[in-house]
């Protein structure tokens, strides 16, 4: 029964995903025929197909064997040492350095991700994560002293970060490299054994990760399991010490439900409709560019923190649209469909999903810019829509693509209500020069994180926790937060044999209660009084039972 309820929702999507996967590979072929200025070695899709058929079957039983092997390695204690953690993270850094071209190539195959974008958002970010972890690992691992109340005097206390055990990381296809390795770095830094399940929807990156991790990292503790629904379900049958999932809310629920069986804590990095509230008193050109950077320069809108929709005033909308249009043309040329600086849609399933958002009756007439699409190349141009109705699919679902609806309000403050009427997003953006509005936005809008007068950059700041709230997920990572996400914070209290207060022990007497009251309340005077047999407390007669 359990496995049934676990699997059925997956099964629904398996066909569409799989058929899309095949199509995407086919379309990959067609697309690769297009000349590109970035000189990649010619892609070998036929080889990939072969590998795909060769892939051995991964089932619950095999999952059990893998789990057993990793648990044995974990129990040996090797992952707990500073040296092991350091060497593994160093290996990831080396791997990224040495295989930069292969990684960029895989990302190009999966998403036509432009080289610079791949470098900025995947390679560099992964490298920075390694660098940061290596720099701070020792201090992160150090126990933190904690104060003890003087009720327990003499004593000392500390908080020790200990690894959780064997953890499962299920990653996603839009930043298939970064979103796989970034949590892996955190899990290793915290001293865990790891299984990574990359997304089958970015097959080139998935198989590259499998190959590289085998080559560079400790095989007895860090593994990649490739696959789709069946493999993920098989993995979820087992007891993990933590599951870290990046993806959609629907699968997030399935993951959490599966985790509940084993009381496994989860981190869910989901998405949501990230709004950008645009006031009229701003540097319009800069704002427009930053919005474009947070939409189409982010994997063509296929990013969990990409701008999903804009809210601005009726009056200001035409100017904003003009600025956006100019910016898009400056960045991607007169015909963005020809630009090599923009990613394609990942597969036919998502292409059709986005097309159906555009084709809805009440939406199709709202396009004010763009709207071009090419099913063969899986391309959709940057598209701006004005005043899409709130009850349209586009305004109800996360868009996750290059469509940018602009909602207009009479007064910009009304935008707050629009945002609050929807579920909590992963990020909320505001562009304004009005200090009061900034403050109101920060105080009153709930979101995973927020950014004033820019987009997406919060992701690159390792001193800020990255994670959702409400429907955009739970748990956070990045920098030290990644280390914490994969650690258990163990409180350790050291007491001495001295200082034993008799009041703690039976037989209980009124005097003991008075003393306890003073002790717990930290009332020095009361303690002295109680000890010498006096009491200011007239509540002693409560005690008679």
């Amino acid at each position: 029964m359990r496995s049934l309820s676990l699997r059925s929702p997956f099964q629904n999507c398996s066909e569409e995903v799989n058929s899309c996967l095949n199509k995407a590979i086919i379309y990959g072929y067609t697309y690769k025929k297009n000349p590109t200025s970035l000189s990649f070695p010619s892609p070998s899709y036929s080889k990939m197909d072969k590998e795909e058929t060769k892939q051995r079957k991964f089932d619950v039983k095999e999952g059990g064997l893998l789990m057993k092997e990793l648990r044995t390695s974990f129990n040996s204690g090797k992952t707990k040492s500073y040296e092991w953690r350091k060497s593994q993270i160093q290996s990831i850094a080396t791997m990224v350095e040495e295989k930069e071209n292969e990684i960029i190539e895989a990302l190009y195959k999966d998403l036509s991700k432009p080289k610079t974008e791949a470098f900025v958002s995947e390679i560099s970010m992964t490298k920075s994560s390694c660098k940061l972890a290596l720099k701070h690992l020792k201090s992160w691992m150090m126990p933190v002293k904690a104060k003890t109340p003087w009720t327990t005097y003499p004593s000392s206390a500390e908080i020790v970060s200990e690894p959780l055990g064997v953890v499962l990381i299920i990653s996603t296809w839009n930043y298939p490299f970064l979103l796989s390795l970034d949590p892996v770095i955190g899990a290793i830094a915290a001293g865990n054994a790891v299984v990574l399940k990359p997304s089958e929807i970015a097959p080139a990156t998935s198989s590259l990760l499998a190959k590289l991790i085998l080559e560079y990292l400790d095989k007895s503790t860090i593994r990649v399991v490739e696959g789709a629904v069946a493999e993920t379900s098989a993995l979820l049958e087992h007891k993990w010490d933590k599951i870290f999932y990046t993806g959609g809310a629907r699968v997030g629920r399935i993951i959490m439900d599966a985790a509940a069986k084993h009381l496994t804590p989860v981190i869910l990095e989901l998405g949501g409709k990230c709004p950008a509230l645009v006031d009229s008193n701003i540097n319009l050109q800069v704002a427009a560019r930053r919005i474009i950077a947070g939409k189409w320069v982010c994997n063509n809108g296929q990013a969990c923190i990409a701008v999903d929709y804009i809210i601005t005033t009726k009056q200001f909308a035409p100017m904003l649209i003009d600025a956006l249009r100019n910016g898009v043309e400056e960045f991607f040329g007169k015909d963005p469909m020809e630009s090599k600086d923009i990613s394609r849609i990942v597969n036919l399933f998502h292409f059709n999903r986005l097309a159906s958002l555009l084709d809805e009756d009440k939406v199709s007439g709202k396009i004010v810019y763009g709207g071009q699409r090419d099913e063969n190349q899986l391309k959709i141009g940057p598209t701006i829509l004005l005043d899409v109705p709130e009850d349209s699919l586009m305004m109800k679902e996360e868009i996750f693509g290059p469509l940018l609806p602009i909602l207009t309000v009479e007064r910009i403050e009304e935008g707050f209500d629009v945002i609050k009427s929807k579920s909590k997003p992963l990020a909320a953006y505001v562009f304004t020069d009005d200090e009061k509005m900034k403050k109101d936005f920060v105080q009153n809008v709930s979101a995973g994180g927020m950014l004033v007068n820019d987009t997406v950059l919060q992701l690159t700041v390792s001193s800020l926790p990255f994670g959702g709230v409400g429907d955009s997920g739970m748990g956070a990572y990045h920098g030290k937060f990644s280390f914490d996400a994969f650690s258990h914070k163990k409180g350790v209290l050291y007491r001495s044999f001295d200082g034993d207060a008799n009041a703690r022990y039976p037989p209980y007497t009124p005097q003991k209660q008075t003393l306890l009251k003073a002790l717990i309340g930290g009332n020095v005077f009361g303690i002295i009084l109680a000890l010498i047999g006096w009491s200011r407390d007239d509540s002693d007669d409560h005690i008679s039972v």
Partner: protein
Amino acid sequence: MRELEDGLAELRQTFKSGRTRNAAWRKNQLRALIQLIHDKEDKIFEALLQDLGKHPVESYRDEIGIIEKSAVNALNCLEKWMAPKKSRLPLLFFPAKGEVMSEPLGVVLIFASWNFPISLALDPVIGAIAAGNTVVLKPSELAPECALFLAEFVPLYLDCKAIKVIGGGADVGEQLLQQKWDKIFFTGSPRVGRVVMSAAAKHLTPVTLELGGKCPVIVDTLSSPSDIKVTVKRVIGGKWGPCSGQACIGVDYVLVEEKFAPTVIDLLKKTIKKFYGDNPKDSKNICRIVNKHHFGRLHKLLKDPLVAASIIHGGSLDEEKLIIEPTILLNPPLDAEIMTEEIFGPLLPIITLNNIQESIEFINSRPKPLTIYAFTKDETFQRQIVSETSSGSVTFNDTMVQFACDELPFGGVGQSGFGRYHGKYSFDTFSHEKAILQRSFFPELEPRYPPWNDFKLKFIRFGYKYDYFNLLLLLMGLKK
């Protein structure tokens, strides 16, 4: 159901109004809570006596005192906790400001348990209020007097449009779980914990599970008689002291070297007599078993003939009064239920080992407990215990007191649960840490944007390395 939904709608409305975000509101509620336990101390003593036969001193120590301490601490620290924390930013972002702000999650649900029916109900409520949430508290129906007390008096003292107590049994629990909450905080057993988490998954609601587990006490061979005496007192204090062993951080079993065991056992027996008198079943200083069901469960543990044969002290039961005498067992079979299940009652198995070092292996071969206690002066052994075992917390040379340390996170790992509370951790448990980055419109770094070219790629490379020197050269056109 209808009533429940209306109540929930009201809580949502209150939260939306923003009232609970106010520091003043939070402080007033905390003050009111302190007032409540001051004013109604007698009623609380009475309810705990009815539900569990808890002596007022024990009630004060484990319930009223704990709540007062937590509430006062929260009241004193609130402003500090609420203040946004600055984050350091890379120079490249200049001018910019980064901070982390704690915001309330919304409407939260707290399930309390019956063994500390006041403190385990109100302690998380303090955290939820401090963090600015609206709250539904569901007390345990197994401590009916305390549940009644909370339902009657909490609304009289606290803002009843923001904090509601909903009493009832499993059916009410189920109805509550069908609703969408912004956080669920559960104290109880792993079995129900799974049900709670599974229900939470439907709404993507984060949960904190405070479960239990078999908390071991490692007793190293000690030489000083006074140390042995203190050890035994503290073991008894950690076993029969808190609700007659019906406590999640209560001592479950003792690990001791074979040659040292007789000394410990002898002193245990003597001290038990000193604390609870010649006839402990008549002692007012020890709680009774909460109900027939649990009495039957504990009785069943003892019925196993091999287990019964291992009883070396106590073992008598009074079904009428639901009292079980403090009972010590020596080496019951390890595969008997008493050693595989959490005992949660006044039975104390003592397991002897050849060498105390074996205790680490012993503990590691079982599910992770909420706490490990160890009495030892050997610092190497202490370090070994901390680094080689895993548990919610570790306490050396004492029992139970870690619960009173506001600076230590309290919570389990593995089978003993996840999430943590107490002090600032309670506040954090009921808050979302929102990252906020503030930028200005100037300066604008061109290389962030397409069309991409080599110059921009180089710029970004240096940027990520925070290599400002090369960045400057590049910008001046001096770097190829």
